[in-house]
C-alpha cells in the first residue's frame, strides 16, 4: 500500500519536474526581447485582465502603452491611482494627459427635430436605425432611445428632458462604450487634441456656416457661448481650429455669412464681428487662452514662412507636443498679414499680440532667415523630422503692357503695401490708378486715398459683380471715394522724360460662356486717362526659385500637394497656404496649416495620414431650408458694425471698423438659429 502511494507520488512528481524543466527550457529558447518597461508597467496595472481597456489583458495594454499606442491612463478599472503609477514608470506627467469626454454631435431631440415619420418600434437606437434610419429627416440625428445610456457602465449618461443624452463629464472615463453602441456615430469621444486634428466629414451634422468655413470652426458653438456670456469658451472653441481670431475677425471674407440660414429670410448673423468680439475679449483681458499642450514628443519640425498658414501649422504642432521652429525671411513675422494688409484693416499692434499667442504656445520664430539663401530644404530635411513650407505668394503678375517697365511711377501692389507696412509713407501724385479687382487692389486703392491722393481710380476688366474682392471692401472703397472704371484693361503706359503721364486702356464687354463671364475687347474703343502713379495688383503667385526642381509644381506655378494632407512629392515635406494655392485668403491658409499639422503629426507617429473616408473637401450644397420649415423673424435686425468717421478714415490709417460692445454682441448672438444640417431653433411647423 505504502509502496503504491510512493510510486504514484514519484511518477506525478517526475511529470511535474519534467514539465517544469521543459517549460523552463522553452521559455529560454523561445524568449522574446521585451522592453523591461512592459513588465514594470504590467506590475503597475491592476492585473485583473478584464479587457475593459480594449486590449487583451494587462500585458497587452502595457505593451500598447510602451509602444505609444495607448496613454498611461489606459486602465479604466484602476482609475487615477493606476494612471499615476503607470505615468511614473513611463516617466511622463499624468496631469498633462487630457482625458477625452463623450460628446454629442446632435442638438435636436426627436421632439424638436424635423421628422419623416413616427418611430414606435423597439426602444433601441440600433433597431430604430434599421428602419429607414429611424424617422428623422437627417441621416445623422440622435434617435434618443438611450442605447448609449444603457451601454455606459459608469452612470455618466442619462437621457435629458429634450430627448438627448446628457454627459456627466466627471463620471465619464472615456471607455468608448457609448461610441461603440451608437449606430449613427453621433456620440463620440472628444478632447482638445482630437478636435484640433479633426477634419469635417460628410456624415457629421454641420451647420451651413460651419461647413462653409474653410477653417472648419464650430461657429454655432462659439456664438452660443457668446450668447450665454461665456466668452472664454467662445475663444477656446475658435482657437481649436483657427489661432488667428483677431486677424480673421478683421480681414476674413467670411463665406460663412453668405451661407447663414437666417440670411435666407432676413439678414445673416454677423458671424465675423462676433469672432472679433471674442478675440478682442482675450486681448483686452491681456491673458492668453491657449489649448492644453500635449506632453513633449521630442520630434522637431521646421516651418518656413511665418504667415497665417505657417504659424497655424506651427501652433497646432506645438499643441501636440512637438518642438517647432519657424524660419522667416523678413525682419518681422506675420508674412502677408504684416506686409500685405494695411493698418486700417489690421493694425500691427493687433497682429503682434496674435503672433505672441503662437509664441506662447511654444513656437520659436527666427526672422531674417530665407530659404534658398541662409538655409536649404535638404538641410532642413536632414535636421528636422518634417518640414512645412508656407512661403506665400509674393511674386506679382506682370500686366504685360507696353511701357510697363519704363517708368518708376509704376509698381506692383505687393511692393506698395510692403513699403507702407515698413512705415514708409510714399508721396503720390494726384491721379493714382490701380489695376486689378482683388483684395490687394482694394487695399492699394484705399491706402492711396489715405496717403492723400486727390483722385484714385480702379481699373478692372470685368464688371463689379465679378470682382474677386470682398463686397463690403468694394462698397467701403466707393464710400471713401474710389472711382471705379469697370470693363477696362490697360494697354499702354505713356510718358515723357522717364516720367509717367497717361495710360491708354481698352474698353471691354462681357461674353457669357457659362461660368465666369469672359471679358472681350470692343474693337477700336480705346480710352485715355491722366496718371501720376500706376499700381498693378492683378494677381500674385509663389516664388518657387528657391526650391528649384526639388518639389513638383502645378501648371499655375504653385507647389503640388495632396488634398487634405498638404504632403508634397517629398515624403518629409509638406506645403500649404498661398504657396500651394496661389493668391488665396488668410482663412484658407489657416485651413492648410491645420491640415498640415494633422498630417505631420500622424506621419511622425507612423500612422495613416490619409483623410477620413467621408472627408469633406468642399462645403456641401445647402439648398435653403429643407422640407418647408420657416425661419421665424427676429425683432432685432442684424447689428451694424460701428465705423469711425469718414473724415478720419480717408486721412489716417486708423482702423476703420470698431469691435462690437458686449450688449451688441449678445444681442447679435441671440439671433443665431443654432442650426444643425437640417434642424434649427424656433422653426414654424413640425412635420414635413
Amino acid at each position: 500500500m505504502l509502496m503504491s502511494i510512493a510510486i504514484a507520488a514519484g511518477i506525478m512528481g517526475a511529470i511535474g519536474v519534467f514539465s517544469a524543466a521543459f517549460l523552463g527550457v522553452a521559455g529560454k529558447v523561445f524568449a522574446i526581447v521585451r522592453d523591461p518597461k512592459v513588465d514594470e508597467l504590467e506590475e503597475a496595472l491592476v492585473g485583473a485582465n478584464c479587457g475593459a481597456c480594449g486590449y487583451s489583458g494587462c500585458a497587452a495594454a502595457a505593451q500598447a502603452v510602451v509602444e505609444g499606442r495607448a496613454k498611461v491612463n489606459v486602465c479604466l478599472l484602476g482609475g487615477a491611482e493606476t494612471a499615476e503609477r503607470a505615468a511614473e514608470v513611463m516617466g511622463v506627467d499624468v496631469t498633462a494627459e487630457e482625458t477625452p469626454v463623450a460628446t454629442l454631435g446632435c442638438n435636436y431631440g426627436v421632439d424638436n427635430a424635423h421628422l419623416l415619420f413616427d418611430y414606435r418600434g423597439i426602444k433601441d437606437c440600433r433597431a430604430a436605425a434599421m428602419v429607414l434610419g429611424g424617422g428623422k429627416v437627417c441621416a445623422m440625428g440622435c434617435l434618443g432611445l438611450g442605447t448609449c445610456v444603457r451601454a455606459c457602465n459608469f452612470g455618466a449618461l442619462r437621457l435629458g428632458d429634450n430627448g438627448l443624452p446628457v454627459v456627466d463629464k466627471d463620471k465619464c472615463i472615456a471607455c468608448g462604450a457609448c461610441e461603440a453602441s451608437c449606430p449613427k456615430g453621433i456620440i463620440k469621444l472628444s478632447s482638445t487634441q482630437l478636435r484640433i486634428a479633426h477634419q469635417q466629414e460628410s456624415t457629421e451634422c454641420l451647420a451651413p456656416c460651419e461647413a462653409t468655413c474653410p477653417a472648419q470652426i464650430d461657429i454655432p458653438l462659439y456664438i452660443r457661448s457668446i450668447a450665454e456670456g461665456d466668452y472664454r469658451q467662445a475663444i477656446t472653441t475658435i482657437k481649436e481650429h483657427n489661432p488667428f481670431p483677431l486677424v480673421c475677425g478683421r480681414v476674413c471674407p467670411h463665406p460663412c455669412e453668405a451661407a447663414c440660414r437666417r440670411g435666407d429670410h432676413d439678414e445673416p448673423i454677423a458671424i465675423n464681428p462676433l469672432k472679433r468680439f471674442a478675440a478682442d475679449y482675450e486681448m483686452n483681458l491681456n491673458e492668453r487662452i491657449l489649448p492644453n499642450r500635449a506632453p513633449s514628443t521630442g520630434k522637431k519640425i521646421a516651418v518656413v514662412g511665418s504667415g497665417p498658414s505657417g504659424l497655424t501649422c506651427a501652433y497646432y504642432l506645438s499643441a501636440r507636443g512637438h518642438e517647432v521652429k519657424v524660419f522667416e525671411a523678413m525682419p518681422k513675422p506675420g508674412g502677408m498679414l504684416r506686409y500685405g494688409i494695411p493698418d486700417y484693416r489690421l493694425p500691427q499692434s493687433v497682429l503682434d499680440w496674435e503672433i505672441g499667442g503662437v509664441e506662447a504656445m511654444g513656437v520659436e520664430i527666427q526672422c531674417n532667415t530665407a530659404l534658398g539663401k541662409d538655409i536649404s530644404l535638404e538641410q532642413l530635411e536632414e535636421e528636422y523630422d518634417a518640414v512645412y513650407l508656407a512661403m506665400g505668394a509674393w511674386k506679382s503678375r506682370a500686366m504685360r503692357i507696353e511701357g510697363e517697365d519704363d517708368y518708376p511711377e509704376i509698381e506692383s501692389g505687393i511692393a506698395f503695401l510692403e513699403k507702407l507696412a515698413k512705415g514708409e509713407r510714399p508721396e503720390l501724385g494726384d491721379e493714382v490708378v490701380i489695376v486689378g479687382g482683388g483684395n490687394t487692389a482694394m487695399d492699394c486703392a484705399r491706402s492711396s486715398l489715405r496717403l492723400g491722393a486727390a483722385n484714385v481710380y480702379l481699373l478692372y476688366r470685368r464688371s463689379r459683380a465679378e470682382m474677386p474682392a470682398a463686397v463690403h471692401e468694394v462698397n467701403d472703397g466707393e464710400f471713401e471715394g474710389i472711382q471705379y472704371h469697370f470693363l477696362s484693361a490697360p494697354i499702354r503706359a505713356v510718358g515723357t522724360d522717364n516720367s509717367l503721364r497717361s495710360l491708354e486702356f481698352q474698353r471691354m464687354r462681357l461674353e457669357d460662356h457659362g461660368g465666369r463671364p469672359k471679358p472681350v475687347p470692343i474693337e477700336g474703343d480705346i480710352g485715355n486717362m491722366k496718371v501720376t502713379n500706376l499700381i498693378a495688383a492683378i494677381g500674385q503667385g509663389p516664388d518657387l526659385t528657391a526650391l528649384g526642381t526639388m518639389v513638383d509644381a502645378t501648371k499655375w506655378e504653385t507647389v503640388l500637394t495632396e488634398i487634405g494632407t498638404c504632403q508634397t512629392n517629398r515624403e518629409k515635406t509638406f506645403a500649404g497656404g498661398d504657396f500651394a494655392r496661389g493668391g488665396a485668403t488668410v482663412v484658407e491658409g489657416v485651413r492648410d496649416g491645420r491640415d498640415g499639422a494633422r498630417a505631420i503629426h500622424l506621419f511622425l507617429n507612423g500612422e495613416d495620414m490619409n483623410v477620413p473616408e467621408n472627408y469633406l473637401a468642399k462645403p456641401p450644397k445647402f439648398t435653403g431650408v429643407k422640407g418647408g420649415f420657416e425661419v421665424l423673424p427676429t425683432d432685432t435686425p442684424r447689428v451694424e458694425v460701428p465705423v469711425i468717421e469718414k473724415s478720419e478714415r480717408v486721412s489716417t490709417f486708423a482702423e476703420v471698423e470698431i469691435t462690437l460692445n458686449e450688449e451688441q454682441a449678445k444681442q447679435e448672438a441671440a439671433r443665431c438659429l443654432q442650426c444643425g444640417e437640417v434642424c434649427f431653433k424656433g422653426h414654424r411647423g413640425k412635420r414635413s
Partner: protein
Amino acid sequence: MTEYLLLFISAVFVNNILLAQFLGNCPFIGVSNKVSTALGMAMAVVFVITISSMFTWMSVKYLLIPLELEYLQTIAFILIIATLVQFVEIFIQKVSPTLFRTLGIYLPLITTNCAVLGVSIINIRNEYDFMHTLVHSFSAAVGFGLALVLFAGIRERHALCDIPKPLRGTSLALITAGLLALTFSAFKGLL
C-alpha cells in the same frame, strides 16, 4: 474513411460537447457576447483540444498503462494540459506574433477548461486509437466552436430586442442555451 466522417458528424452535431454533453459552459456564457470574440475563442479551443488530446492519449498509452497507474489519469491530464498550453503560448508568441495576437488572452483562459479535459478523457474511455483520437478531438472542438459562434450570433441580436427586465443578461442566455440544446438534440436521429 466513412468511419472518420461519421465520427466527425457525431462529434460536431449529435454529441456536441457543449449542447449534448454540457462541458465547457463557462466560456459558453462568458465569451459569447460578440461573434468576433467567440470566433477567436473557438479557434483557440480547436487548437488546444486537438494538441492536448494527442499528448494525453500518448501519456496514457506509453506511461500510465505500462506502469499500471490508470487511476492517476485525471490529475496527470491536468498537469500535461497546463504545461502544453503554457508551452504553446510561449512558442506562438515567438514564432507567429500574428497568431498570438489573434488567440491572445484566450489561450491561458482555457488552460483548465473542462471541455479540454473532458475530450481527453472521452478519448480514453471510448478506447480510441491515435487517428480516432485526433479526428474526434478536432471534431469535438469544431462542435464547440460552432455552438459558441451560433450562440454569440443570437446574443448579438438580443442586444437589439426589447427584453423584459428580469430576463435580461444571463437568464435569457441560459434559456437560449437550453433552446439551442433542444434544437441540437434533433440531430440525435442522424446516426
